[in-house]
């Protein structure tokens, strides 16, 4: 029994069918391919986000080639960033980026970079601080801020710095500049980069791959059960015994089986179990979150709109995040000459304003926004369609790791249940890793191996990231986490002590330098009564005078005085903080009566 006719479900089914096992695939929708489907509208084809076939896993690559053979096209990749009516190569190329920015903006970018190098933000808790410390605030605000905020629906100041550190690992401007002069052609890195400059793509979109597998399964006597929504997972202790699906006519069909492969989102899988799993498992499943996705497909009465496969929209004047030009993915996506089909991608939350808007309104919005951007004339748009994709991205928030650990432990204890795929494992897998987990599950069922599917894509670095590090950051693969401060961190901040030596040194510099400068300015100016007032300081600083030697005496003794001042201040503040902290500790040990009262009724 396989729940889901997406890449993972169909891969497992086809591998099992070829090994002589009879799989039953239940697919709730009327199409196969899941997120990797290709939607057809009046002969025009639209992907959910444009799917490159790109992997470093040979097993997956061979599988693809085996199924689609010469139906694969090798396509050039062009993607750019659109900002302030100007295109920037993406991945970023420093020279062309600076050229596109123009002299003034490039100068400002340079100055803000310099400022970041000289006076970096002392804290690096969030994405904004992390990125602007490395690239300067200006470059950050052009290339990172708006797009990241659109994709994740959170402010960059709310996104943890860890995410940026992972995503933009070794990228720094110095390395980028160096890479422009030192060729690494022929190296592994170069080979991977070449792969990123072009990619495989089925003639009729990714959906063609999955429709082909559906047909192969049908021909081998295992047709995919379309329109069958698996709603109840019948459990007997730690075993799945059957799945009840509801078909389009509302009929309930119970399927029994020996092994169950699930590609449905873990949250839904757990909720469908009967009897329900332990409460902590249910709670963990309920805490999983997803980000949803909406494409407004437009048919445009014009060809050659722009040469890109897709464009990142960094303007905050519009809501659209990315624009796909499907004709550039494959000319076969368009049935009529002289026309284009484009997909405007909006990153949304199921039920939010955009998600719930009427299709006509969304199409109007799409027309208006592409017109505003100056990319397409609204009058050239002849038709449109809206495609909604719930649960496009599993979200890695502050709690997901703990929840997933609980869920994994439980799900692994259900001996004949095999969770695979993207939402099936709540992992940010592309098709290749979604498929690999399915291949592993099939091998486990066939008794050929004992793979741990949960380990797939856990340690491996996605080589697209590795390879493009030297040039630019993609900012789209990993999922950011909200910055959360633990109570320990909060208290650390509140009760942090001042370092007396550091405060002493800082005051020493300010006082010493201040007195030196004040004296030196007067000495340089000269004049008969110059410095009569300032020299009164020698009442406190023996040997001080408004002369050059006096300036140095002032520097040294001012520094000594400053140090003592700063040191004493820090010690005094620390003493007060310590008293406060120990009082608090005492109160926590012997709570006052009102603190023990249960206020929840």
């Amino acid at each position, binding site marked *: 029994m396989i729940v889901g006719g997406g890449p993972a479900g169909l891969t497992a089914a086809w591998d099992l069918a070829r090994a002589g096992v009879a799989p039953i695939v239940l697919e709730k929708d009327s199409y196969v391919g899941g997120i990797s489907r290709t939607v057809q509208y009046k002969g025009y084809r639209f992907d959910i986000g444009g799917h490159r076939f790109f992997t470093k896993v040979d097993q997956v690559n061979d599988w693809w080639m085996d199924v689609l053979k010469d139906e694969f096209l090798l396509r050039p990749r062009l993607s750019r960033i659109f900002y302030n009516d100007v295109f920037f190569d993406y991945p970023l190329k420093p020279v062309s980026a600076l050229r596109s920015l123009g002299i003034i903006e490039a100068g400002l970018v340079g100055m803000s970079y310099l400022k970041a190098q000289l*006076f970096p933000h*002392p*804290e*690096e*808790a969030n994405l904004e601080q992390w990125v602007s410390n490395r690239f300067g605030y200006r470059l950050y605000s052009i290339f990172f801020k708006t797009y990241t905020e659109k994709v994740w629906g959170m402010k960059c100041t709310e996104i943890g710095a860890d995410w940026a550190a992972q995503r933009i690992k070794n990228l720094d401007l110095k390395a980028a500049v160096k890479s422009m002069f030192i060729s690494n052609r022929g190296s592994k890195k170069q080979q991977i980069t070449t792969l990123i400059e072009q990619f495989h793509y089925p003639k009729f979109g990714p959906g063609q791959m999955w429709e082909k597998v559906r047909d192969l399964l049908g021909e081998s006597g295992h047709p995919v059960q379309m329109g069958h929504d698996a709603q109840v997972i019948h459990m007997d202790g730690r075993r799945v015994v059957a799945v009840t699906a509801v078909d389009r006519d509302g009929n309930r069909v119970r399927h029994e089986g020996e092994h169950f492969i699930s590609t449905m989102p873990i949250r839904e899988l757990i909720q469908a179990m009967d009897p329900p799993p332990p409460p902590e498992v249910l709670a963990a499943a309920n805490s999983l979150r997803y980000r949803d996705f909406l494409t407004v497909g437009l048919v445009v009465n014009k060809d050659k709109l722009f040469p890109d496969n897709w464009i990142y929209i960094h303007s905050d004047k519009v809501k659209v995040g990315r624009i796909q030009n499907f004709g550039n993915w494959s000319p076969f996506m368009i049935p009529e000459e002289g026309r284009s089909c484009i997909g405007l991608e909006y990153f949304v939350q199921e039920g939010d304003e955009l998600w719930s808007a009427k299709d006509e309104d969304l199409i109007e919005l799409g027309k208006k926004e592409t017109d505003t951007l100056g990319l397409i004339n609204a009058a050239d748009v002849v038709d449109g369609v809206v495609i909604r994709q719930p649960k496009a991205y599993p979200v890695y928030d502050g709690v997901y790791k703990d929840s997933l650990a609980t869920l994994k432990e439980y799900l692994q204890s259900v001996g004949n249940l095999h969770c695979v795929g993207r939402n099936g494992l709540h992992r940010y897998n592309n098709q290749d890793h979604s498929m690999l987990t399915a291949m592993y599950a099939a091998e486990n069922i066939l008794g050929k191996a004992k793979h741990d599917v949960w380990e797939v894509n856990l340690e491996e670095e996605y080589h697209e990231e590795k390879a493009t590090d030297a040039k630019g950051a993609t900012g789209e693969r990993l999922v950011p986490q909200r910055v959360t401060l633990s*109570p*320990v961190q909060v*208290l*650390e*901040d509140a*009760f*942090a*002590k*001042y*370092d007396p*030596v*550091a*405060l002493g*040194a*800082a*005051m020493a*510099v*300010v006082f010493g*330098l*201040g007195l030196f400068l*004040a004296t030196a*300015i*007067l000495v340089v*100016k000269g004049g008969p009564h*110059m410095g009569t*007032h300032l020299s009164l300081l020698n009442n406190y600083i023996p040997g001080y005078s408004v002369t050059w030697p006096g300036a140095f005496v002032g520097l040294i003794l001012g520094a000594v005085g400053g140090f003592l001042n700063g040191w004493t201040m820090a010690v005094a503040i620390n003493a007060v903080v310590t008293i406060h*902290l120990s009082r608090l*500790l005492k109160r*926590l*040990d012997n*709570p006052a009566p009102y*603190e*023990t009262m249960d206020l929840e009724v």
Partner: protein
Amino acid sequence: MSADDSFTNKEWQVIGRAIARLRASVMAVVFAMLGGGVLFLATAVLVVNATEGMPVGPTLSLLNNYFPGYSVTWPGAFIGLVYGAIVGGAAGYLLSYVYNLVVETRHPHMKKG
């Protein structure tokens, strides 16, 4: 609730050992406000209390050795506000910059923030 319920001893130790950082931008703004404010007020008080025929703030006006254009007058009060803010801001920034630098050198194991 007792202390042990919420934090382990180790966590309390961590809290007890935390070293504060200064936010350069915040310090610069605070010192700038202080510097500008104090100089403005000092000048304004002297201008308001000026007595006919007597020189107004002869000592304070010596500051124009450092701040060209400054004088103990109403326009001078505003010029002093700007100068005071600039010098105060620079001092605040320098103070926290040096402080954080020394803290980082002395406690390299402590994370930022």
